[in-house]
């Protein structure tokens, strides 16, 4: 099962996890990215490229499912304005064994950072600033290509 969603609604973990572990999986790994307010951020806005975003996430989920023989892959990304503590992204992977589920989950968040058309803008009170891409994100994504990735 592959499920991808790009939605301004808050991410509900219970409903996103429903079904993931009802597939005979022995292992489920998840990752949740959360808006941090630690450097004065009062609001985080997520812009995306409708149509392309969903296709890019589906593509990543399918690559992960094929590479690790996943029983399911879920990628949920929130868009629009949100506040510190809100969930931005949720990934769940289910497999027969733990290594596949854990590696596929790390792969999906690493690749999502560099291969899906999202842009973040931080608000600190009335001041807004577009977030700069981080070189570390490209290194993290690139390490998956060193190991006979399908792409």
């Amino acid at each position, binding site marked *: 099962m592959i499920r991808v969603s790009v939605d301004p609604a808050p991410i509900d973990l219970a409903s996103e996890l429903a079904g993931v572990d009802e597939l005979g999986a022995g292992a489920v790994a998840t990752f949740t990215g959360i808006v941090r307010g630690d450097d004065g951020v009062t609001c985080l806005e*997520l812009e995306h*490229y409708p149509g392309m975003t969903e296709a890019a996430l589906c593509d990543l989920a399918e690559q992960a499912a094929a590479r690790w023989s996943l029983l399911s892959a879920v990628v949920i*990304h929130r868009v629009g304005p949100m506040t510190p503590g809100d969930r931005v992204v949720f990934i769940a992977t289910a497999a027969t064994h733990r290594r596949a589920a854990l590696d596929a989950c790390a792969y999906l968040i690493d690749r999502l*950072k560099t291969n899906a*058309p*999202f*842009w*973040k803008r931080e608000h600190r009170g009335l001041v807004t600033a577009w977030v700069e*891409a981080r070189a570390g994100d490209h290194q993290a994504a690139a390490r998956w290509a060193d190991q006979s990735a399908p792409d």
Partner: protein
Amino acid sequence: MRVLYFAWVREQIGMSEESVDPPEAVCTVADLAEWLKDRTPGHATALRDLTRLRAAVDQQFVPLDSTLGNAKEVAIFPPVTGG
């Protein structure tokens, strides 16, 4: 051809999309950006430094030196920052 802009490219240009009909000499995405620069001061500012830009042609990420071919939709934007 439909051209889409996102994030600060969209803000500086002052619109999220436009329809354009570039001349034949415009072969690559970079050529297109150079050609679009003359439209308004906003275009000139947003598209000044090509190294800060990324692109998608028909909703696939491509390097800026990719040819446009028969592209229907070209998007120009800053490096992505999702997740």
